[in-house]
């Protein structure tokens, strides 16, 4: 019979139970979504790396003889070596106005690839030695709708060549293929092209030589020892400094993505579960208060305290089970969706779907746990309740009276058994207080969502640092005079040279391999901003570090940093840190261009230029740029920015839709439950008012007005908590590759409140219907 009671009670209270179950479901779903996508993505990546032999160590070099491969292979711990030619080159693609570039990577002419093995999605490998046939990366092919047999032109070391696509492939090395100076992968403007080693060597005058080497390590090898030894071997050939996987762009971006997912899995589910526990507490306390006499009765007729207590626990368990099922289904669905989204974005050749039962078990366990925590107080009350209460009505206690509208004195219609109609249980007041907390609890989540929205906007600040329309990087460092050549191109208004110098920075025992960017002291196109977004004038000597880099090196203003120059005339110098600046992407450091060149002792050299041009002359400029033999990559910041916004807008729109949905679920769940409980506590008084002649609107106004007031009062609190919460979340998403400056725009607070107020308004409308349908006679006839 208790089972039947359970079923009927659940049916009667289904909207409240469902609201709670949905909040729990949200928690389970986010856990499964994030943990599942995390596991899928990391296992897919691991499997991809394994199957296609992704290298462990990478090094660029100006020109090293191929025979060096043997010496490199002898480094203790090295499992496999592959030397190759890797060069950036401009492309000329029919029908594409703006310039595109591609990374040209050589394929061995004899034997198979040993490392970073191509996964062929279509077609075949180029014939050894053929200087026309290429394999292109799938993303680039998709962006241009290229098929096998299609052609495009490339400017290889100044010579234009018509290339034929014979294969479309994927590589673990370019899962995230980012062009230099780009903020987001733009597969239309940046591709990866594989061709015969012999053909590439001929094009770049690298016969019998290589410009890049990758290694895989044995299981127990010391990564750092191999890197050090490799650097020693490559030094005299212009080695640019070897680096490990963790510094490889594609890998590092994927890592950052995984880190975000991991953070999401840790941060979001607890919020939902805490709210759910709170809702369970609120609802169960009220249920137990309402069923006090039934509980007493059950005990009076011989049911043990544990039997009765477990009856109420089962009630909660059913709700939790429903939440878990809904959450598991929803989370799996969202997780698969998210993983597919990632697959599309990252172009994995296959996908390892990880439906790890332990994630589901964890989700179920923590949800039951949260439900139990929420129910424990109410159920303890059940267990402790004396059976004698069945014999007597509940003790009247104090609580705030309902204030009738328009100063009418308090309602009087009450039956005789419960004394003062104004009396209400202290517990009721307490619960109302709980509701207050509840409404407050809504906001942080929502605000955090909006902070995520804002983070997109924050990159505006990052972009405001770069005000150029375009950047051109040269195939090799050039004399400063090259900048003047660019300034003569059609439409060019301002030109600003820059130089990138590969270095290793060392401070104490901490070191990092980075590039120092040299800029003119008063650069106006590409500016350096300090941590407060104010432009920094680079000092004549010394180095400016991004705050993240400074943190990694544990360097402060005035500290001396050792700089190992990994380019040209290699030497080690010491420079003082003269500024700490704001950096969002990667680890950046800047020096005054002249100071950098003095340090490198190579005269006035530049790696490229930033330029501002007249957009009216864009076509002429683009046409001219494509024919500059010296350039190998032309970044278009405007296009880049637009692409960045598009990608981000899509991603963020998806995430925000999910988050706002989840925030709405919480807000609705809390407000609806609070309203229903309030209604159940006051039904008698509200009905009395209706009997006295108040209209439905007036009576609803009392209950809903109070809720509205609470909801409004909760907003500023929610803003505060949400702000702190979003800041913590933003910090937890931080990685070496990019960081999100934390800024919350005033509009965000308004948007967050709108979501909460909207959800509150919907629940108010639902409750309003119940108030309208109050059965006056029934309510007044039965005792509470």
């Amino acid at each position, binding site marked *: *019979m208790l089972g*039947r009671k359970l079923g009927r009670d659940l049916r009667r209270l289904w909207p409240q139970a469902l609201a709670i179950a949905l909040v729990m479901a949200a928690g389970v779903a986010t856990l499964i979504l994030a943990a599942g996508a995390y596991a899928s993505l990391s296992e897919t990546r691991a499997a991809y790396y394994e199957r296609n032999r992704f290298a462990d160590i990478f090094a660029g070099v100006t020109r090293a003889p191929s025979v060096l491969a043997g010496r490199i292979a002898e480094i203790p711990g090295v499992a496999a070596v592959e030397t190759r030619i890797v060069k950036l080159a401009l492309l000329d693609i029919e029908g594409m106005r703006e310039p595109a570039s591609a990374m040209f990577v050589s394929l061995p002419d004899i034997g198979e690839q040993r490392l970073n093995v191509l996964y062929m999605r279509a077609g075949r490998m180029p014939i050894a030695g053929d200087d026309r046939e290429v394999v292109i990366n799938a993303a680039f092919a998709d962006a241009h709708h290229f098929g096998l047999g299609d052609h495009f032109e490339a400017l290889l070391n100044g010579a234009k060549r018509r290339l034929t696509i014979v294969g479309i492939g994927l590589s673990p090395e370019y899962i995230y293929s980012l062009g230099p100076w780009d903020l987001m992968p733009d597969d239309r403007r940046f591709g990866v092209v594989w061709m015969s080693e012999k053909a590439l060597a001929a094009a770049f005058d690298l016969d019998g030589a290589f410009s890049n080497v990758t290694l895989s390590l044995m299981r127990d090898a010391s990564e750092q020892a191999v890197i050090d030894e490799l650097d020693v071997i490559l030094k005299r050939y212009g080695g640019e400094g070897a680096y490990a996987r963790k510094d490889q762009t594609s890998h590092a971006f994927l890592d950052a993505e995984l880190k975000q997912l991991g953070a999401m899995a840790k941060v979001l589910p607890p919020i939902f579960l805490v709210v759910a526990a709170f809702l369970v507490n609120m609802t169960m306390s009220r249920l137990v208060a309402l069923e006090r006499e039934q509980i007493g009765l*059950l005990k*009076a*007729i*011989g049911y*043990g305290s544990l039997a009765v207590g477990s009856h109420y626990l089962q009630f909660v368990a059913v709700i939790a089970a429903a939440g878990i099922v809904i959450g598991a289904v929803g989370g799996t669905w969202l997780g698969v969706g998210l993983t597919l989204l990632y697959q599309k974005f990252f172009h994995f050749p296959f996908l390892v779907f990880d439906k790890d039962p332990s994630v589901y078990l964890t989700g179920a366990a923590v949800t039951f746990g949260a439900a139990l925590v929420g129910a424990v107080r109410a159920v303890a009350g059940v267990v402790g309740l*004396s059976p004698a209460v069945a014999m007597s009505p509940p003790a009247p206690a104090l609580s705030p009276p309902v204030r009738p509208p328009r100063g009418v004195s308090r309602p009087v219609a009450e039956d005789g058994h419960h004394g003062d109609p104004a009396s209400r249980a202290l517990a009721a007041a307490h619960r109302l207080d709980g509701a207050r907390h509840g409404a407050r609890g809504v906001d942080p989540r929502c605000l955090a969502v909006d902070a995520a929205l804002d983070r997109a906007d924050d990159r505006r600040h990052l972009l405001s640092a770069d005000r150029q329309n375009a950047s051109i990087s040269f195939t090799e460092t050039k004399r400063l005079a090259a900048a003047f050549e660019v300034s003569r191109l059609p439409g060019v208004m301002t030109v600003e040279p820059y130089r990138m110098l590969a270095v290793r920075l060392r401070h104490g025992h901490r070191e990092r391999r980075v590039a120092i960017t040299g800029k003119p002291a008063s650069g106006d196109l590409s500016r350096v901003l300090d941590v407060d977004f104010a432009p920094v004038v680079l000092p004549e000597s010394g180095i400016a570090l991004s705050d993240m880099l400074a943190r990694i090196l544990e360097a402060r203003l005035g500290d001396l940093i050792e700089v190992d120059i990994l380019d040209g005339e290699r030497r080690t110098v010491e420079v003082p840190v003269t500024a700490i600046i704001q950096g969002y992407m990667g680890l950046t450091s800047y020096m005054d261009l002249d100071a950098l060149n003095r340090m490198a002792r190579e005269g006035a050299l530049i790696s490229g230029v930033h330029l501002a041009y007249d957009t009216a002359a864009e076509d002429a400029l683009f046409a001219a740029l494509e024919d500059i033999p010296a350039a190998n990559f032309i970044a278009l910041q405007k296009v880049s920015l637009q692409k960045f916004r598009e990608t981000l807008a899509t991603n963020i729109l998806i995430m925000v839709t999910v988050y706002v949905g989840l925030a709405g679920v919480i807000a609705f769940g809390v407000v609806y439950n609070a309203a229903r409980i309030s209604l159940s506590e006051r039904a008698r008084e509200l009905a009395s008012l209706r009997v006295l002649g108040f209209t439905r609107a007036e009576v609803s106004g009392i209950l809903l007005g109070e809720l509205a007031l609470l909801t409004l009062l909760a907003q500023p609190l929610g803003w505060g908590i949400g702000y702190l919460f979003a800041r913590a979340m933003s910090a937890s998403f931080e990685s070496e590759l990019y960081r999100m400056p934390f800024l919350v725009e005033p509009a965000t607070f308004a948007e967050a409140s709108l979501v909460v107020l909207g959800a509150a308004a919907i629940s108010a409308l639902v409750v309003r219907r119940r108030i309208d349908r109050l059965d006056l006679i029934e309510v007044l006839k039965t005792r509470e």
Partner: protein
Amino acid sequence: MTNPIFRTKDLRKIYRTGEVEVHALRGIDFSAAAGDFVVLLGPSGSGKSTFLNIVGGLDRATSGEAWFADHELTALDERGLTRYRRDHVGFVFQFYNLVPSLTAVENVALVTEIARHPMKPREALALVGLEDRADHFPAQLSGGEQQRVAIARAIAKRPDVLLCDEPTGALDSRTGIRVLEALVAVNAELGTTTLVITHNVAIREIAHSVVQFGDGRIVGREANATRKRPADISW
């Protein structure tokens, strides 16, 4: 009196609320024989409900002894009291205390499920004249019908004693009489010892004996030489 089923000796109950002590029972010596129909009368606060709660195993005495047959109730722990209530006692409350989400027959089944030698739920309902209303929910029954369901629920397990606290308190005279008829019938047919608390002096005339409570003590006791049938009384 031979073979009393209830015996109490100097039964006392003190409620403490902070500094305040309320003496609800100030030494009750009471006994009732098996099959007795006893009416407990007295003003509010005179201790009758407290007394009933203690002999029903719902509450504990502060001192003194209470015996049910050869069980010393005052010595039982929580589990023992639950057992006692489950096996021997039927309760009827002033406000019926039916579970609103269960039908009449299900409310009765709530007890028969855990009792040792119960009657069939519908049989119990038939005893109180409600066989036709078995599948109605409490909200679909009148007050008197609800109270009769409560009685059916109380007697369905064939209890040794039936304890009723103001069973007609919420009912009008005509409905109340139907309820009393059910109680008397059960007492007569099943031989269930019945203790009925009431404010209603008219009811005294249907009992074997009447015990008068006042200020936590028994202030009077009398036996009815002749019992009236419930139909013959009114209020």
